[in-house]
C-alpha cells in the first residue's frame, strides 16, 4: 500500500519498530482454572515459531502452571506476533517525527512517572539503554524496573508506528491482554507529530518551570500500598 500523497520529504519506510532492535512487545494476561498469569516481554519476530511453543512449555514448566495454559500462551503470543507481521510488509510514513513518550507504571514497589521526547526517525535509539541509564541515574535498585520501562517505551513506539502505517485498520492488538501495570492510556498521538518548527525554533532549552514535567518522578510504595493496589487491579482487571 502506498502512502497517500502527504507532504513528506522522506521516502516511506517499511514498517518496523523505530528503535535499533526490531523487537515486538508482548503482553500476556491469561487466566485458567483460577490461576492468573501476567507477563510482559519483548520478542524477536525473526525467531522461528517453534521457539514460541518451546518458550510456552518452559514457562508452564518453570512456573508450575496448569497445563491448560500452554495452548493459551502460545496462541496469545502468536497472535501478537502475527499482528506485528501483518504490518511488516506495509509502508510506514515516518517523516520527521518526534513524539512524546510517557511513562506511568508500577513495578513492584517502584512507581515511576516520566515524560520525554523520542525521535521516530532515529533508528539508533535503544529503549533498553535509555531504561538502563534512567535507573542508574535515579538510583533504582530493583532490577525489574529497567526492562519494564523499556517495554513500556516499546509499546508506545509500536503503537505510534502502527498508526503511521497507512492502513485503515484500527489497532486492536495491544488492548487485548490486560495491562499488568497501572498505566494511563496514552493520549492520542495526534500531538505526536509535534510541530517541529515550533519546538525547535527558539531555544532548545526548556523553560525552567517545565523542567519538572520532564524529569522522572519516583515513588516507593510500602507493602500495604502494593497489596492494596494489586487487589484493586484484580478486581478491576
Amino acid at each position, binding site marked *: 500500500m502506498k502512502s497517500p500523497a502527504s507532504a513528506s520529504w522522506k521516502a516511506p519506510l517499511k514498517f518496523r519498530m523505530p528503535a535499533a532492535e526490531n523487537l515486538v512487545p508482548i503482553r500476556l494476561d491469561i487466566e485458567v482454572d*483460577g490461576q492468573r498469569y*501476567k507477563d510482559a*516481554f519483548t520478542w524477536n519476530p525473526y525467531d522461528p515459531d517453534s*521457539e514460541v511453543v518451546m518458550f510456552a512449555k518452559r514457562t508452564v514448566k*518453570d512456573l508450575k502452571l496448569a497445563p491448560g495454559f500452554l495452548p493459551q500462551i502460545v496462541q496469545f503470543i502468536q497472535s501478537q506476533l502475527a499482528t506485528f507481521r501483518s504490518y511488516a510488509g506495509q509502508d510506514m510514513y515516518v517523516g520527521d517525527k*518526534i513524539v512524546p513518550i510517557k511513562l506511568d507504571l508500577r513495578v513492584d514497589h517502584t512507581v515511576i512517572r516520566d515524560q520525554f*521526547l523520542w525521535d521516530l526517525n532515529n533508528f539508533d535509539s535503544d529503549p533498553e539503554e535509555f531504561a538502563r541509564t*534512567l535507573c542508574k541515574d535515579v538510583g533504582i535498585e530493583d532490577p525489574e524496573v529497567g526492562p519494564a520501562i523499556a517495554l513500556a517505551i516499546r509499546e508506545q513506539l509500536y503503537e505510534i508506528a502502527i498508526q503511521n502505517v497507512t492502513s485503515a485498520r484500527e489497532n486492536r492488538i495491544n488492548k487485548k491482554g490486560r495491562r499488568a501495570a497501572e498505566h494511563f492510556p496514552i493520549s492520542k498521538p495526534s500531538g505526536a507529530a509535534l510541530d517541529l518548527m515550533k519546538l525547535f525554533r527558539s531555544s532548545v532549552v526548556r523553560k525552567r518551570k517545565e523542567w519538572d514535567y520532564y524529569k522522572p518522578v519516583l515513588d516507593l510504595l510500602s507493602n500495604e500500598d502494593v497489596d492494596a493496589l494489586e487487589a484493586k487491579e484484580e478486581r478491576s482487571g
Partner: protein
Amino acid sequence: MPLKPPYPRWYEKNAHCEYHGGVSGHAIENCITFKRIIQRMRNRSWIYFNNSESPNIIQNPLSNHQENEENAITKKMGKKAKTIVSEVNSLLAWSKIRIPKLTKDPGMENKPRHDPNPDSTRPEEPELDLYTIPSYSSWFAWNDIHKTERQALKEFFEGSSISRTPKIYKEYRDFIIKKYREDPSRRLTFTEIRKSLIGDVTLLHKVFRFLETWGLINFVAPLKPHEGSESDDRVRVENGVPKGVRVVATPNSLRPLSAPVVKGKNSGDGVEESEAKLPPLASYSDVFGDLKKLHCGNCGDNCDSEYYEYKKDNFIVCIKCFKSGNYGEGISKDDFDLKDCSEKSATNGAVWTEEETLLLLDSVMKHWDDWDLVAQNVQTKSKLDCITKLIELPFGESLIDSAKGRGYSSSTSTNMIGIKPVCVTSSEHQEKIINEDQGYDYTNENEKNGDPENQEPPSKKKCTASISDADSSLIEQVARISTMVEPQITAAAAEAAVAMLSDEMLCPREIFYGDQIDLTNGPLSPTLRAHDIRESEIQERSSPSESQEIPLKNSDVPLPLRIRAAVATGLGAAAAHAKLLALQEEREIEHLVAIIIEAQLKKLQSKVKHCDDAELLMEKEYAAIEELKEHILGERINILRTTYNTGTSKLLEPSSVQSQTGNMS
C-alpha cells in the same frame, strides 16, 4: 598523626598546610607533595602559568585565548623546592584560588570570560573560573564547533532535519557543560539535563556521552561506586516468583509453588537475539536440573537411587513414600513410573567404537575446523564429544594444529631443513635424526585425504644408530638411507637441496624456478626419484639427496630438457665438489710429508751430534795414552841408565856381563 618532639629539621610548629587538611608542621608554600602535584599537572598541560605582571594566575584553558607561554619556574620540584621565592608566590596564589563555584547565571557567564578587547594582550582578571579538562580536549572553544565534534556527532551537521542543526548542537553542548560547572564536584547525570532540553533523548544521550568521554564534563567528579556491570551488581536473589510474572497457587496444589531462584530467564531472553542461530531458550530447570539432587515430593528425602516419577506431572516420590501411599489425593499408584537415578547420570564418557573413530578422523580431514560438519558426519556423537575424542587421540592435537598450517604448503622447504636424514659432521661418525613428526604432517598435507587408519602416533625425534660405515662412499650411503625412509621425506629433502643449489648458482635457479612453478605442489613419482637418488650428490651442509622433481602441471619447459638439465647440473655440481675435495686432500698430503721429512732430519742431526761427541772422547783418550807411553819410556830410560852405570863395574865379572849381554841380545 601529629608529630612529636624531637621534630625534624623542617618542622615549623605554627605553620599549617591547607593541602594536608590544615595539619601543622609546614606551610603549603613548602609542601612538597602539593608542589609535585602542581608540577605533574603542568607536565600534562592541565594548567598553565601566566607570565608577568599579575604574577602566576592560572588561566582558564578553555577560554579563547591561546595558551600563554609558560613562564613559571621550571626548576624541578623536589627537595630543593623550598628556596625559590617566586615559586612560593605562585603556590600561594594557587592555593587561594582553588576551584570556585559559579555564582552568576550560566547564561551570562560567557561574557566575562572573553576578553572584551580582543587585541589586547593583557592577561585576564583573576576572578576567572577555573576548570580542569584533559589536554586531549584542548581543542574545545566556546564559540566554535571543532572538527572532532562534527565527526562524532554527524547527525547535527548533515542538515537532515530541522531538529538537528549545528546551532541546536551548540545549545545542547553549552548547556550541558555549564550545568556541570555549576558544581563540578558532583557527577552530572543524563537525566538531570534531559529534562531541561528539548529533543530526542537518544540523541541527547549521545551528546552527553560524547562530552563525558572527552572529559568536558564529569571529569573531576568521582565515579559512581556502581560503575561497570551494574546489572551484575544488582541482581538480587529473590525468593519466590518475580512479581512481574504472577502465578497464584491453586487450592489443589500439593505443595507450595516455588519458582526458580535465578530470575529473568523468561523476560530477558527475547531481547538480545541476533540473526545467528541461538541455542534454544534455556530455563532454570534445564540448566540446573541435572545438578539438583532429587528430592521426594512428599517427605523431602533425597532420592538417591530410585524413585517414582509421576507420569502426568513433574513430581517424584521416594520409594518409601510410594510404598506407604503418601502421595496425595487424586493420584493413584499406577501413575507412577519407577525411574532409576543411574539413568539420569550424565553419560559423559561416551563410548567410541572403531567405526566412529574412523569416521571422526575422516571427517576431521575433510572439514578441519567446522565441528558442526564433523559432528554431522559422525552422527552418533555430539560436537563436544567429537572434539574431546579428538584431543584424547594421541595425535589429535597435531591434527588440529596441522589444520591451521594447511594453507602453508609452501613452507615445506623450511620444514624440511629441519629434517636431516644424514648429518655429515665428520667422516667417522654419522648419526641420523629423523623428525618423523614433521614427516607425518607433511604426509597429511601432500596426500590430502590420507587414510587415517595408517596413521600411527608419530614417535618424536628418533635417533637411530649410525648405519653408515666409513668405508662406503657417501653416495652409497645416501642411496641406502634414502631407500629406507619414505619417499616423501626424500622428496622434501630433495627440494631443500634444490633450494640450496639455486641459492648458490644462477643456472639451476633458472631451470627450476624460471617459470615460477611452485615446486612443492607436484606429487612425485617414486620410481624416478629412486633412480635419481643414485646419481645425486651430497651437499656439505644440508640434506642429502636431490631428486629431480617433475611438476606435472603448469610446466612450460619440456620434460627431457628438464631432465637433462637437471642431470647435468647434478653431475656438474658433483664434479666441482670432487675437485675441491681432491685439492684439499693433496694439500693435506703435502703437509704430512713435510712433517715426516722434518722428523727424519732431526734424527740425523742428533746422530751426527752423537758421533761428534764420541770422537771428541776418543781423541782425549788417545792423548792420554800417548802421555802415558812417554812416561813409561822415560822410566825405562832411567832404569837403563842406572843399570848401565852399575853395570860397568861388574863387567869384569863375566857372568853378569854375559847375562846382561845375553839379555841385551
